[in-house]
């Protein structure tokens, strides 16, 4: 059996999904965390799955989330639906419920957050409400695992016994009622052929839903009759068709709520959130507070906690490398194999691995920000700025994801309904500094900007955002004309971060970083070591400047000469960064033959503070890794446009780094 889990955004669907399946899907205190369907087996019930669908407010096919949810229900025909609603905000949530009831699929309504309703003095007459709606209702608290077993029992019995929603005529009497029923009769046979409820199809036709109209394969005569009925309804009701349907649904909701709901007073959580928001999202304080928070996070990560733990790990890796070095020497291992292990694997993987604590620490703080509900406020605060540069506020979600990784960020752009907004967001998302670049920043800031590490770090992140804004402004005025589509987002209440959520996110980041270090970085380090140890005739070289890699590196290095770093090892590191950005650090480690703990010191022979800054800016802005380029190619569906994006990013990176270096040289900064 398959159940569809449907509900508004941020009403606790993924929390309920985790409770039902025992899985650990990422639960965000951020509307729109789920933008695709996820499937899981219901615990303790054999052959029974539940599909977590994206949060929606209606069944109209306008947003990607609505299309995914609707197509799943219409095409997969689940055995049952669980409609989860936020019981503290019952009226708005029931609007979707009425549309789901019209689909005539066995369904159970889960009233979530009932503990909050009770805690704030509210009550809901569950039996009365169930009678009015014609479907079973189970009060639950997904976060506290209350009522989940009862919900499972109810949904299983409803689906097994094929208990369809009772016929409740919530259109009342009047023009809307007459119109819906008239159309229902006209399309009944067509709807049956499509396996669709005629009432659902009728309301969708009234709303002008092209998808449903084409599925029903109505002839012109039927379409003309339907249009005539709808126009008559509009005339008699003195409202347009969409407003008339919304009015019909809300009138019914108001009527049943008046009978069964004693509204809770404004919750303490909401009152507290409003007070906090007066400060955190205030007109003048929002941006300075955001910058202050980010500065504190970077300072704690890169100068205090993360840096300390990273140094400890680097010392451990160096100790292990020395131990392996001694062991290999004692056993008289061939010098080439010895070099492969110590200068290749240990130097390469070790140099990257030592930054694990920094990644984990940074994501510890960021997951707290997200779980408290602050990240949603960041999206709200930034929305005003986004609209000024011609982007929809919806673009903020992919951009925020981009600070983690460009690949899912580029994929997340498909939630944008406007093609123009999508293209523009894909163009600027790679400028958001992804987590793979953190080891590069941490290494260079520790080596050259010890006292100003946090400032340089936050400066790099801001520079990335600024580059994105400029790119958006230019593209708006040149090839992506038009206006952004409106953005509506529900701000969740502030809450204390969940320990489980924070730990899960930290573990996921650590695990993925480790997997990457021991796969991509491992192989890249071995290849780099091979290329810098042998020449074109596969003879071992005495000096790496005669190696195969040096030949390639020296060919490319003149490109970077105007930027202040023309050493072939640096150019090679930038090229390997195409595979994964962490490979820039591992390549530096392999090419300089330096252990993790001493890499910062070695860099002083290759860079000055100004050339290091120029290098950092280039790294920040040049094209992301090959996986991200593949994602861009997939989303743009055009090889030429993808190449143009890559060339544009490399070009912008080169020009900005060039200007920075030349400007610093002009004022005699070194």
């Amino acid at each position, binding site marked *: 059996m398959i159940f569809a889990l449907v509900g508004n955004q941020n009403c606790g669907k993924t929390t309920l999904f985790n409770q039902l399946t025992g899985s650990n899907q990422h639960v965000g205190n951020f509307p729109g965390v789920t933008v695709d369907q996820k499937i899981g087996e219901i615990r303790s019930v054999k052959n029974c799955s539940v599909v977590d669908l994206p949060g929606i407010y209606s069944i109209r096919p306008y947003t990607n989330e609505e299309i995914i949810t609707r197509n799943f229900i219409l095409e997969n025909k689940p055995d049952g639906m669980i409609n989860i609603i936020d019981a503290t905000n019952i009226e708005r949530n029931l609007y979707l419920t009425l549309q789901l009831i019209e689909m005539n699929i066995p369904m159970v309504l889960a009233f979530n957050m009932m503990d909050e309703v009770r805690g704030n003095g509210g009550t809901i007459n569950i039996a009365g409400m169930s009678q009015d709606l014609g479907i079973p209702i189970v009060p639950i608290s997904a976060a506290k695992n209350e009522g989940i077993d009862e919900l499972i029992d109810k949904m299983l019995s409803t689906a097994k016994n094929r208990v369809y929603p009772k016929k409740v005529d919530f259109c009342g009497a009047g023009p809307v009622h007459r119109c819906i029923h008239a159309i229902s009769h006209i399309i009944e046979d067509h709807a049956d052929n499509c396996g669709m409820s005629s009432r659902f199809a009728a309301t969708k036709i009234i709303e002008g839903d092209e998808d449903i109209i084409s599925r029903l394969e109505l002839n012109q005569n039927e379409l003309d009759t339907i249009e005539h009925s709808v126009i008559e309804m509009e005339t008699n009701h003195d409202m347009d068709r969409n407003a008339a349907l919304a009015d019909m649904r809300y009138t019914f909701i108001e009527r049943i709520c008046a009978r069964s709901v004693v509204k809770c007073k404004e919750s303490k959580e909401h009152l507290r959130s409003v007070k906090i928001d007066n400060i955190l999202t205030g007109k003048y304080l929002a941006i300075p507070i955001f910058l202050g928070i980010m500065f504190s996070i970077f300072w704690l990560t890169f100068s205090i906690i993360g840096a300390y733990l990273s140094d400890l790990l680097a010392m451990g890796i160096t100790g292990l490398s020395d131990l392996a070095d001694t062991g290999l020497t004692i056993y*008289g291992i*061939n010098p080439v194999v010895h070099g492969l292990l110590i200068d290749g694997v240990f130097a390469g993987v070790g140099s990257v691995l030592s930054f694990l604590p920094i990644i984990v620490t940074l994501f510890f703080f960021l997951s707290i920000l997200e779980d408290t509900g602050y990240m949603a406020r960041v999206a709200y605060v930034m929305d005003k700025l986004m609209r000024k540069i011609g982007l929809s506020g919806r673009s903020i979600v992919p951009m925020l994801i981009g600070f983690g990784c460009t690949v*899912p960020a580029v994929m997340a752009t498909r939630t944008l309904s406007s093609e123009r907004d999508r293209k523009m967001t894909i163009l600027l998302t790679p400028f958001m500094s992804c987590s793979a670049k953190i080891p590069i920043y941490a290494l260079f800031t520790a080596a050259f900007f010890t006292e100003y590490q946090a400032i340089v770090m936050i400066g790099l992140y801001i520079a990335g955002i600024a580059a994105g804004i400029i790119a958006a402004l230019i593209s708006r005025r040149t090839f992506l004309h038009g206006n952004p589509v409106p953005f509506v987002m529900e701000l969740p209440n502030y809450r204390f971060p969940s320990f489980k959520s924070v730990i899960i996110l930290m573990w996921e980041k650590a695990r993925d970083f480790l997997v990457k270090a021991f796969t991509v970085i491992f192989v890249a380090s071995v290849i780099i070591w091979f290329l810098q140890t042998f020449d074109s005739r596969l003879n071992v070289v005495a000096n790496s400047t005669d190696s195969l890699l040096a030949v390639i590196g020296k060919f490319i290095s003149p490109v970077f000469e105007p930027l202040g770093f023309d050493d072939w090892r640096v150019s090679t590191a930038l090229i390997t960064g195409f595979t994964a950005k962490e490979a820039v650090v591992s390549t530096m480690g392999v090419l300089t033959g330096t252990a993790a703990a001493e890499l910062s010191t070695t860099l002083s022979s290759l860079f000055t503070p100004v050339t290091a800054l120029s290098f950092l800016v280039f790294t920040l802005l040049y094209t992301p890794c090959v*996986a991200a380029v593949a994602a861009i190619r997939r989303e743009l569906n055009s090889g030429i446009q993808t190449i143009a994006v890559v060339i544009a990013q490399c070009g912008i990176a080169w020009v900005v780094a060039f200007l920075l270096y030349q400007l610093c040289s002009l004022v005699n900064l070194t």
Partner: protein
Amino acid sequence: MLAFLKDNLSTIIISAVVLAVVILIIINMRKDKKAGKACSCGSECGSCPGSSVCHK
């Protein structure tokens, strides 16, 4: 031949282990790529908005 193997046994073993590890990693990465798991984005696939694209 035997003398060579005896003299260089440790080198041969270590080389074989490193080679085996590299081959295993490459095979695994290729397998993951075919299975649509080679996102290499350093992110968790379950919470990725595009997971259904990778994991069809």
